[in-house]
């Protein structure tokens, strides 16, 4: 049987290395890599060598993932709940983008300049608004987790990213592959794929 956990995790990550697949799917890196190799044997994923290389889905992998995810949703019978949560997610999405922009750029005396993170007060205000957004996102994630259990992992990953940023590792808001912004976008991609909505 096709390994939907790893296939779908890679589908939402896009194109990446086994370490990130392992992190997103809560597996060890060795396990993730071994399962990616199995999927490659099935012709569903492929590895591109080179300095910017990594693992990605083949066209066959994309259609197989879409088919399996649609079947999973149909079996769960929770399309309406996922659709409702997606609509609420879309209300929060522009706010998340505003906050990421505010994190990178800040208006100072009429000039939008790169935020050099020397003004702790400004950074604290952005972080506080992230935390406020996260509280509202938690409700959406909870509903998604009830509708389809695999969505529960996003809540854990978002919480982990925000906790690290709050603890002072500020790059975990919007500047790393495991940042709040990145996990949020994988959730966005996952919702689109799950509901069969083209981007």
């Amino acid at each position, binding site marked *: 049987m096709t390994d939907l956990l790893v296939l779908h995790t890679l589908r*939402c*990550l*896009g*194109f*990446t290395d086994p370490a990130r697949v392992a992190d997103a799917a809560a597996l060890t890196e060795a396990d993730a890599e071994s399962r990616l190799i199995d999927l490659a044997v099935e012709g569903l994923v492929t590895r*591109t060598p*080179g*300095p*910017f*290389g*990594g693992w*990605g889905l083949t066209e066959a992998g994309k259609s197989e993932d879409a088919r399996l995810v649609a079947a999973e949703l149909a079996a769960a019978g929770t399309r309406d709940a996922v659709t409702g949560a997606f609509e609420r997610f879309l209300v929060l999405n*522009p*706010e998340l*983008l*505003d*906050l*990421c*922009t*505010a994190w*990178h*750029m*800040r*208006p*100072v*005396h*009429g*000039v*939008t*300049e*790169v935020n050099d993170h020397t003004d702790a007060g*400004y950074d604290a*205000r*952005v972080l*506080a*608004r992230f935390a*406020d*957004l996260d509280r*509202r996102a938690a409700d959406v994630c909870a509903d998604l987790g009830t509708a389809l259990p695999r969505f529960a992992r996003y809540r854990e990953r978002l919480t982990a990213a925000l906790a690290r940023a709050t603890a002072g590792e500020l790059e975990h808001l*919007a*500047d790393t*592959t495991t940042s709040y*912004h*990145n996990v949020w*976008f*994988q959730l*966005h*991609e996952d919702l689109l794929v799950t509901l069969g909505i083209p*981007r």
Partner: protein
Amino acid sequence: MTGIRPLSPGDPAGPGVLGGKGHGLVTLMRLGLPVPPGFVIPPAACRAYLRDGTFPDGLDAAARDLRAALVSVRSGAAVSMPGMMDTFLDVDPRSADLRAAVEAVFSSWLLPRAVTYRELHGIPHDLGTAVVVQAMVSGDRDEHSGSGVAFSRDPSTGARHPYGDVLFERPGTDVVSGRVATRPLGELEQREPAVWAALLDGLDRVERHYRDVCHVEFTFESGRLWFLQVRPGGLAGRAAVRVAVDLADERIIDRATAVRRVSARQIRAARTPRILITDDLDVIARGTGASPGVATGRIAVTADRAARMAADGPVILVRPHTSPLDMHGLAAAAGIVTTVGGPTSHAAVVARAMGKAAIVGAAGLTVDLASGQILTSGRTLPEGVLITIDGTGGELVAGTAETTTDESGSHLDRLLAWAASADTALSP
């Protein structure tokens, strides 16, 4: 001051009562410029409504007095909060929809995005917003109608000519949406010479009044121009430096004012590397600069191609928009261009996180994934062709381009000399 006030050139109230948009409209009327009739519900009425649900008296009567078939209902806080609150168009002023629209605009003061905007810009949360209700003018009425936005000077360079976007036979919402390819403002001159002349006259008058570069929104309906908004200032970096020096040369402001207007931060921003704009520069398209810097590389239209091509030299990834699925391409590319989306889009956020030059919303470009090329009106650029992008000014040019950190050099030198002779320290 909760009472409804007609938009009138004689109203002496300031932005605290009329809101920023309403105050600008009254100023336009005072300058003799055409503004659709309307009225303002002051921010105090918003505060009362949000406090205890009190709704201002006289809405129906004020709406009746407009004698308009349809009206627009827009927010207008004393301090500009662009795009953060609700706007309603084509509302029937004789229906319950009007009151619902006003209540929705009041309530939109508390939308989380608006709260975030105020937090980050240091705007007090207890101000409330004014509501501006005006007779609708339609940019899509007939072939002599349209909408646009215009700066009185080029916002990228500060050069002394109007710059903006126009759409023929379309409403203003399409111009600002970023989803429709706009036309350069100058096309108005050929197609609607009377509208063009009226617009130039209006831009000149608002500049002289505000003694600064101005930004206006306008609609023309059946060949007649209407101004819908005016906002002074807002330029950054070298454009701000050049405008301050030029305005002093034109004797619209004095030199001390020019020095006061430009902060040390503006001067630092003026020194960010930029493409050197010359007459023979082959500018293919222009978008919004979303992440500063200049990058040269070969066009790639998919993330996969960008990742592969990057092994042989720098690549510029050109996409309609980007998503997490493009991360490897974004990582491999030297610069990023998208044809839709604004400065808060995924591409812009990621480019800034990675410190790469990026242009977003280059609406004059089409990415043809099937043939692997990018198209503009009249030309085709296949994958692999060398281009250069400027993530500050938003220019995309063919081939390589010279860069400069002091294009505004002569302007900057003069401003600094004025500052030294006046012994006026630059503000921070």
